[in-house]
C-alpha cells in the first residue's frame, strides 16, 4: 500500500485534516490519534481484507512507515 492510499483513507475516511499528513510526519504530528488508528484498521479489514490491529499500526514511526507496514501485512496474508 502506498503513502497516497493511506493518506486518502486517513483524510477521506477518517476525517483527518490533509495538510499535516505527510510521509515523514510522526503519527501524532499527522493527527493520527488512537481513534483514527481504529478507523484505519477497520477500513483496511473491510475494504482490503488486511487484518492489522491499531496496536500494530501504532508501532510505525511515521505515516510512510505505516504504509510500508500495511503492505507487509497485505503480502503475508
Amino acid at each position, binding site marked *: 500500500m502506498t503513502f497516497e492510499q493511506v493518506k486518502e483513507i486517513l483524510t477521506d*475516511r*477518517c*476525517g483527518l485534516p490533509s495538510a499535516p499528513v505527510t510521509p515523514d510526519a510522526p503519527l501524532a504530528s499527522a493527527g493520527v*490519534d*488512537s*481513534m483514527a488508528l*481504529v*478507523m484505519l*484498521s*477497520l*477500513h483496511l479489514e*473491510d475494504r482490503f481484507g488486511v487484518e492489522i490491529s*491499531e496496536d500494530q499500526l501504532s508501532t510505525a514511526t511515521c505515516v510512510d512507515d505505516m504504509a510500508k507496514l500495511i503492505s507487509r501485512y497485505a503480502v503475508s496474508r
Partner: protein
Amino acid sequence: MTDTPCAPDRGRGAAAVLTGLGAWLPPRRVPNSELCNRIDSSDQWIRERIGIAERRFAEPHVATGDMAVEAGARAMASAGIGAVDALVLASNTPDRPCPATAPWVAHRLGLPAVAAFDVMAGCSGFVYACTVAAGLIASGTARRVLVIGAETMTALVNPLDRATAPIFGDGAGAAVLEAGAPHAEGALGPVVWGSDGSLSDAISVPAGGARGRHRRNRTAPEEHFVHMSGNEVFRHAVRRMTAAARHAAAEAGWVLGDVDRLIAHQANQRITATVADLLEIPAARVPSNIEQVGNTAAASVPLLLAHAADQGELKPGHRVLLVAFGSGLAWAATTLVWPAGLSARLS
C-alpha cells in the same frame, strides 16, 4: 456473535406502527468553552474529534422522569391520543435505584393504572424498548404503547473526566406505537439485536449497585461516575452497528442502496461517519444532531428521529434504517418506511 433477529411482523399478530413523536431538551445550552478549562481540552478538539459543539444540561431540580413526562406528552399530542395501554421507559439514569421511573411518569402523564416499566439497555435502550413494545402489540397484550428514551447523563458524568465530560448531554424523546398492518407505512420491521456481557466493563458505573454493597462506605467518588474505554468502545461500536444494520436491512428485504436515511445512535460523529462509510450510505442520507445535543444515550435515537422529522429530513416513503449501540454491550437495529402525516412535537 449474538445478532439475533426478532421479527414481530411475521404473521404472529399486528405490527407496531409509529404514529407519534415527541422530544424535549433542557433549555440550558452548554458550549464546549464552558467545559474546556476543567478538562484541558479545546473547542476545536471536541468539534473535530467528537463532533459536538454544545449539549444540554438539566437544571438540578429536573431529573429523568421530568424530561420523560415532557417528551411523552408531546409524543401523545403528536399521535393525537390521550391514553395508552403501556408505557416503556428506556433509561440508564432512573430517578432512583428503586422503584422504576416509568410508573411515576405514567402518573404524571395522567395515565392511571397503566402498565409501566423501565428498560435499561445502554444507548440501545430506545430500540430495545420499541422491540418490547412491538412484542406487546404482536401478542395482543397492548394495542397502543408509549415508548420514551430519557436521560440525565449529567448524573453519571464526572465533569473532570476528559474521556466522558465533553460527550454526554441530557434530554428525552418519545414515540407512540400502535397496532397496525405489518406492511403499513411506519410499521417497525424485523429487529436485529444482541449483547456481549464479556465487555460489560467497557462502559460502566462501578459503584452503587448490588455488586459493591459490601464496600459502600469505601467507594471513591469517581466510582459513581461512568467510565468508558474509548478505543475498545469505538471498535466494537463500529463493528456491531455495521453488522446489525446490514442484517436488519437484509431481514427487511432491502439492499443498503435502498436506504434513504440512516438514523444512528449519536455516540460520536466519527463513529457515525465510519459506520455510514462502511455501509456505503452517503453522508447526505445520515441525519445528525450530535453537534447540538451531544450523546444523550437512550434518548439519542428518538431525539434524532424527532429533530430529523421536524427539519423535513425524513419524508413519507423514506426507507429508514435505525441502529444503536452502547453499554452492556448491547446493540439493535430495525427498519421502517417513514409514514405520511406524522408531525413531531418539539414544543
